[in-house]
């Protein structure tokens, strides 16, 4: 963007320059983009949830469970939920830190969040290895792996984003006035967490 786009009226010129430099008033442009992207992801998971509930509705009550000898590991899933929720808190601490102008704390909290995210993924993979049923085993298997699997893929995407943020903050690229990428990644991370809460509640609690 250049400052060559100017209003013919002098009064508007400074405002226009400011507008272009800082994405006008209100939310920074990149965050608007991230928000819209998250909206599309909400619809994507909506579609996946629709397949879950449709499969669920086709099975009589009491028969909705993994095919023998498979089983769900609720305690492990609960621990993973706690890990992810905690990581949202640590992410937010990092955002607050950089808003205060403290890149050191941002680096710390981002690293912790990244670690928790990787821990979640590792735990999910471990869970998969212990479950005793596959995606091809009954409609339960299909929707279970699809829903949790795509959520995991989104966590992975978030992990990539966190890694980039960590690298950039280590190089001192973020300041209090200029850290849109951190806000964007944190918004995405919170979204991933909220989706997990829905996934966990639906699969493990609602049944």
């Amino acid at each position: 963007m250049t400052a060559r786009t100017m209003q013919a009226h002098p009064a508007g010129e400074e405002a226009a320059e400011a507008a272009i430099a800082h994405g006008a008033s209100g939310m920074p442009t990149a965050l608007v983009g991230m928000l819209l992207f998250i909206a599309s992801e909400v619809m994507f998971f909506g579609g996946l949830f629709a397949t879950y509930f449709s499969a669920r509705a086709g099975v009589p009550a009491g028969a909705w469970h993994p095919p023998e000898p498979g089983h769900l590991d609720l305690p492990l899933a609960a621990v993973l939920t706690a890990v992810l929720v905690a990581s949202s808190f640590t992410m937010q601490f990092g955002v607050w830190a950089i808003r205060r102008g403290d890149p050191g704390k941002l680096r710390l909290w981002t690293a912790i969040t990244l670690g928790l995210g990787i821990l979640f993924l590792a735990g999910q993979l471990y869970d998969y290895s212990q479950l005793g049923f596959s995606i091809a085993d009954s409609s339960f298997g299909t929707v279970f792996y699809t829903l949790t699997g795509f959520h995991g893929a989104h966590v992975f995407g978030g992990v990539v984003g966190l890694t980039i943020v960590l690298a950039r903050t280590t190089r001192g690229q973020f300041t209090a006035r200029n850290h849109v990428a951190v806000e964007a990644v944190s918004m995405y991370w919170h979204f991933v967490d909220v989706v997990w809460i829905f996934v966990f509640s639906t699969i493990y609690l609602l049944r």
Partner: protein
Amino acid sequence: MATTTLEPPAGAPAYQRFWVLDWLTTVDHKKIGILYIVNSFLFFFAAGILALVVRSELAVPGLQIVDQDTFNQAFTMHGTIMLFLFIIPALSGFANYIVPLQLGAPDMAFPRINALSFWLLPLGGGLIFSGYLFGGAAAEGWTGYAPLTQQGGVGTDLWIIGLLLVGTASILGAVNFITTVFKMRAPGMTLFRMPIFVWTVLVTAVLILLATPVLAAGLIALFIDRNYGGSFFDPSVGGNPILWQHIFWFFGHPEVYIVILPAMGVVSEVLPVFSRKPLFGYKAFVFATIAIGFLSWTVWAHHMFTTGAVFLPFFSFMTALIAIPTGIKMFNWLATLWRGKLMLTTAMLFALGFISMFLIGGISGVMLASPPIDFHVQDTYFVVAHLHYVFFGGSVFGVFAATYYWFPKMTGKKLNEPLGKVHFWIHFIGFNLAFFPMHQLGLSGMPRRVSDYSPDAGWTILNMVSTVGAFMIAVSILPFLVNVVATFINGEPAGDDPWEGNTLEWATTSPPPPYNFDRLPPIHSERPLFFLTHGHGHAAERPADLEEDEAEDVEHRKGLV
């Protein structure tokens, strides 16, 4: 009226890349727009040839030209390519080029994502077509109903992956357009001073953003069913075939509004300029567009009336309701013509053609909204007639209107008008010959997606007429192509504002410089350039516009975000 003078004057820039590399790596919305449009037309021709294969085979009873499998691939690919790789990208291309200009912005909000969105298209389209190289393209219809798709070969998998890429491109594009509209309007341009075309692109982008991901979920589920033993849709392993239809049409219905709304926007730009009057009822038009956007989510199961598995009254009612905002738009257009001074340029002819043809498509649509009538004509050529009147008579006419209207802005040269009119008339007559008989074919019971029909059915003559019309359409493309090539080589220079336009794209050079504007005119209404051309003192303008405070210009800039 030049508001952009190039300073420094244009000469050879100090650093210039090789033009191929320039176009391959560009992030300029104008070049990307042109890439979109050219790419779309290439796919248009490919899908058009597939249509000619279908029509040639159906001209007379008996399988003369292709076998059943080839025929099924032909209509599947025709539908898929036309919708996903021609119409939507073509309109996206015009939107890409024109929206930042109409907003007075220097580019889109995310130029690099803009480029990515484009390049995913030839990639996705290539994948979809590559089925032909691997034992056969997808052959289950563009709607890919399960469990039939379970049986398809590699071509079906390539179709799925290709569509996922194309869908991703759409979603990224939607993010870009919505952000651009909310963050990059020139000072003074409130939302209700945006050109109508921008409004239709905005609502379309919201539909794309929210509907396409649902298709993605369905396609992924289908892929899992086909390749990993999933049981989403296959009843023999506990799946539900109707689930596919729900997921597909929940996307599929907003999809058809995605296809038509930008074309309506184009028509709403062209009609006022060539009637020399403003669009009648601008605000009502905006609200009607938003209403259509909302309603489009509530009607999807009208594609499933004959499954016996949907609640008919609700979906019939909501479908009928959409006729109301659509009717409002139609009347707005007619009132724009009323007491205007019409200039029948080729762009105007295509816009008028749009209104006439879309009316017919809309009427057949209202008929289909009635379940008892739908029980008779669903899955027959009546539906094929309806969809071609709205997609072709509607959206494609809109694409051609946009082409003739904005070609001078993009290239600096006007397309030849007499040749354009030859194109229009052959196209218009061919189109009606091809598709009007299909109403009767469907009413008398000819199903769709059939490679052949009985000689005793009485359908032969109408099929023959339809085939003649199809070839006429193909022929009409020739004057168009000749026109485009000849104009590039030796066309009449257009200047900044050949049509006496109303909106900001005409306030800069043709083509615009990379940064779009040197200087913007003051923006006090939805027709900023009209004011510039005809002055504030025009008696017929509303006094309220003249009382705008300059300081208010910046205040209103805040917008919604």
